[in-house]
């Protein structure tokens, strides 16, 4: 990842159906620097209501949804999945991610519910030609950030809010500054959760993050008035990032 702030779009694979999902990827790819593609699951435990709805509404489940990505994602992408779903078949899952063409894999529950598997996860990712990515919360232990950095991740993803798409009165500037300062320039820091306006991304850019992830707000725009609104929304964010 280079030094300017990237726009990363989160989408749940095959939501609302495979055809529309692939069409969205194609249509918005010129505005997006990277995709984060979620593997639909029955238990999107750390997600907010909007992304939960996309998991429930996706056409395919699990690795079957990954298969449709192969050669069809027009930009660099990482796969987001819950370790809980794949802990017993991690090799197979990572193999499918690699076959799909992913650059990296992000498992948001890894550091919280499978703390002992961090090193093994990284090792297995690399065996499959993938780069590990790590999700941290807004009150993550400082020393644990160092442990994560020692895995040489593609990026660290800081969740700005308690869950995706739900905005609480959290002083995100302070939290971003804390983790930006701990991470320094050792690894790209991307941020997400409840980012929904050009003002949000401008602020985050000013705080020195390397990428912003939007997901719930884009889905809401799609629901409101279709892909046209989604495109306009991304254009506004992109403009705010390059200004």
């Amino acid at each position, binding site marked *: 990842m280079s030094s300017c702030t990237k726009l990363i779009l989160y989408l749940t694979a095959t939501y609302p159906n495979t055809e529309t999902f692939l069409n969205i990827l194609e249509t918005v790819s010129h505005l997006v620097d990277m995709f984060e593609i979620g593997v639909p699951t029955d*238990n999107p*435990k*750390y997600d*907010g*209501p909007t992304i*939960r709805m996309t998991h429930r509404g996706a056409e395919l489940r699990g690795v079957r949804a990954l298969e449709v990505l192969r050669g069809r994602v027009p930009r660099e992408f990482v796969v987001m999945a819950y370790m809980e779903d794949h802990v017993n078949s991690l090799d197979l899952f990572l193999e499918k991610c690699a076959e799909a063409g992913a650059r990296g894999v992000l498992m948001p529950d890894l*550091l*919280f*519910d499978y*703390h002992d598997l961090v090193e093994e996860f990284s090792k297995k990712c690399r065996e499959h030609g993938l780069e590990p990515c790590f999700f*941290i*919360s*807004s*009150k*993550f*232990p*400082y*020393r*644990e950030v160092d442990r994560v950095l020692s895995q040489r991740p593609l990026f660290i993803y800081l*969740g700005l*809010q*308690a*869950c995706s798409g*739900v905005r*609480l*009165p*959290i*002083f995100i500037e*302070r*939290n971003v500054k*804390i*983790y930006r300062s701990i991470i320094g320039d050792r690894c790209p820091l991307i941020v997400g959760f409840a980012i929904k306006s050009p003002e949000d991304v401008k602020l985050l850019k000013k705080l020195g993050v390397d990428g912003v992830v939007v997901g719930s707000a884009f889905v809401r725009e799609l629901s409101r008035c279709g892909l046209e609104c989604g495109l306009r929304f991304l254009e506004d964010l992109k403009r705010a990032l390059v200004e």
Partner: protein
Amino acid sequence: MWSKVSRRFKEGSRRVISMVSIPSYWYNIAADLPVPLPPVRDPDSGPSRIELLTKILPSVLIDQEFSGERWIPIPDDVRRMYEKIGRPTPYRRADNLERELGLKDVHIYYKFEGVLPSGSHKLNTALAQAYYAKQDGAVEVVTETSAGQWGLATSIAAALFGMRAVIFMTRASYRSKPQRRVLMQVLGATVHPSPSDLTEIGRRLLEEDREHPGSLGIAISEAVEYVLQRPEERRYLPGSVMEFVLIHQTVIGLEAIQQMPEQPDIVVACVGGGSNFGGFTYPMIGMRLREEGFEKTRFIAVESKAAPKLTSGKYMYDHPDTSGTLPLIKMYTLGKDFVPPPIHAAGLRYHGAAPSLSILVKLGIVEPVAYEQEEVMKAAQLFARTEGIIPAPESAHAIKAVIDIARKASPGTVIAFNLSGHGLLDTDAYSKVLGIS
């Protein structure tokens, strides 16, 4: 801070330091934990409980719950209130108790929060929470209470900040502990027995059993539902479990570290939801985790066998309230529907423990122990008859553990515990223990 403390330890002073300052910052242990705190979660169905927090809690408290900051500044107005209520509280040597136990070179110290106007540590966070509620424009603060300590603290805080207080008091305590109820009313608070007919969950439970004793979990549900009936002017103040509550309570431990003439080998506090325990021990545990001191100190959490979440509960996601209105948190729990038997230490009748405390127990950094009421109340009497302070039944759990530990301790052992409250309003409990009608 540690350099000052260690210097004092090295000097070997036995004098109890009284000139300490009120801390300027609270301590947030999340920054130093060996593993991250699991995120709060929404249940699989229904509306987002996480989103609901914005309608219930003062906004700064939500921020503090999700703050990555290790040291959180205490607002000047809250610090002034801390001074007004009598902080810093004393840290004393229990030398009479040591003599009574026949201890040889085993020292027992206690931090005494019972000197506060509420008679317990609860006021430390009540003041902060009421202050932030007022900042949000609220005119009424609402909460639950069991023994009455949290309700009393909230009532005092509301009075000091010129707000109204509405308290849902578990029915068992409403009846057995009229003293604190009356004091809350003197302070201007409105006190309802819980379950009550003011809320849906209360009405449902009363239909099942008109004499339902209530529980802290039910009272929390009622308080939250009551706030949601008029969120524009009401704010809910939780008495324990939430991380920001433990954060505010760290004034206890931060003061104690300044006051300690000797570094304790064993640190003890009782656990209801964890605020008294966390408040006293976290600044010390934090120093240990940062390798700045307390390397060999053992930390003992004492709970009631009537609500043994740390010793018999499961580590899992559960609601902090009975109705499931609040988000899921990962903690040691007996299940949100657990209704503990009525006991003297009503403040320990809670089904779960704070997520940070639960993690520390799971990692073995904190050792839990549970006691029966009878043995605890005997220890309370022994403490009263030697140290001249009648402890709250909750705090007496810590005393019981301290006595047991001290009797087996090798010479040179130093024990410190938090005497979180006095028992001057627990005459009902002591009457029963003494068989006085």
